[in-house]
């Protein structure tokens, strides 16, 4: 037990540094995922067939590639092609764009969860298509997607560890823990603190989404 606490106090700087790197990675990627995800979802429900197809290609490409492959292409591939992309940009962009594909699917399913009858009723009552989306469809869709969006966010926090083990070599929580484990040979204790760190982040995300769900819940 004291061994466990010693490891924490002796390596507090590295562990805190690693947690901070993971936080920044996750925060940046989350922002990109929300913006790009919303945009792609909009494409996927657009009235034009070609726009829908474009959104579909994005989702199917990004979602069907392992994140590690995406990281390798975006970093080593682009650099070899002469684009001087840094590990931070490559890491945040890859994780963000990858998660955006999932966000887009969640949002699309949310929009489709509002029955067609409501849209038809709204249009026949004289609302425009934009008004119908904004006043009838989106408020209801928002409630439906909160829970799956929370799952996607938690998955993204965990996926951030892949960025650290990849070629990008960002000093994230998992990487710092592995450095500590290699130096002290106290593998079990080091990984215990990695688990605690990730649980802190995923736990915080869970609480935030719970609160949002409660705030916007439909009383049934």
């Amino acid at each position, binding site marked *: 037990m004291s061994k466990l606490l010693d490891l924490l106090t002796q390596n507090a700087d590295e562990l805190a540094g690693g947690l901070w790197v993971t936080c920044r990675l996750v925060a940046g990627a989350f922002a990109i995922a929300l913006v790009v995800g919303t945009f792609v979802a909009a494409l996927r429900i657009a009235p034009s067939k070609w726009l829908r197809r474009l959104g579909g290609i994005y989702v199917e490409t990004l979602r069907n590639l392992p994140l590690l492959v995406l990281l390798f292409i975006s970093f080593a591939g682009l650099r070899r092609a002469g684009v001087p992309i*840094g*590990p931070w940009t490559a890491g945040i962009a890859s994780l963000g764009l990858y998660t955006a594909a999932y966000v887009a699917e969640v949002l699309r399913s949310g929009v489709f969860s509002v029955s067609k009858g409501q849209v038809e009723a709204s249009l026949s009552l004289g609302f425009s298509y934009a008004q119908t989306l904004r006043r009838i469809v989106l408020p209801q869709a928002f409630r439906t997607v909160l829970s799956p969006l929370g799952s996607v966010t938690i998955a993204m926090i965990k996926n951030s560890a892949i960025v650290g083990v990849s070629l990008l*070599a960002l000093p994230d929580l998992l990487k710092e823990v592995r450095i500590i484990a290699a130096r002290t040979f106290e593998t079990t204790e080091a990984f215990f603190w990695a688990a605690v760190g990730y649980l802190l982040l995923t736990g915080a995300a869970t609480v935030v989404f719970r609160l949002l769900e409660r705030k916007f819940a439909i009383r049934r």
Partner: protein
Amino acid sequence: MKTMRWRWLTVLVAALALGACGEEKKSATATATTAAPAAAARQFAAGTTMAKLQKEKKITIGVKFDVPPFGFKNPNTGDVEGFDIDIAKAIADELGVTPKYIEALSDNRIQFLKDGTADLILSTMTINAERDQEIDFSEPYFIAKGRILVKNDSGIKGVADLAGKKVCTALGSTYEETLKKQAPKAKLTLVDSYSECLESIQNGSVDAVSTDDVILTGMIIQDDTLKLVGDVLTTEPYGAGIKQGDKEFKAFVDEVIAKFKSDGRWAASYKKWIGQYTKEDQKPPTMTLKEALALSK
């Protein structure tokens, strides 16, 4: 008739898929069992690791898969080859068992010995006092020198020029400490394997790679726009890793290595894997384990 055709097609596709899987399995086992066990096996006292390995008819050895010329997968045959592998084979032959090679990275190999995933580690591992607390080492079987690898046009001339530069080395290797001491202002990029360091210096995301000269020579063999610069940073005696406290097995491994050094096999293996690239001649190391451990203190 039409449905019949579809059915045949399905069967054909399934057969092809199965065939492909079968093929893969075959090549995987081929990698695992490269050397045929020697005919006449030595007898060992019951209860020793040697007797246990003979009973199981195989020895699991952790080696590098991506570090030419010590341990690497031959792209043509899929077999693991190199200087470390020659020693591994010598040990397996002496036992009369089949060697099974698993990939040991710098940061998991000590764990492999502790939890019994590997019976022996031969993966360019430097003998040092810290590691000696966790595992036992054989007598040194090779002496490497720590060097710096840069691109031909980088302008870096030695360890003093590394300040502010990105330097790649493997997570869990001795170079993390070495670089922190000798180049405190260098930014370290710690990756899992040296092949990732090679990719990083080629794509320009790091400025230098620091590790053992022989590993760096392996990189120059693959890419001649790279070169070694500066003085020798450290002396790195390689030893085989053995589970802590297994005295009989250590004595056995030491004995095989001593024989390997004295009967000409060391020289032949050195010439085959290292000498032909460095054009340098080298004699088997005479450094003892004690001297090797004293180096790191």
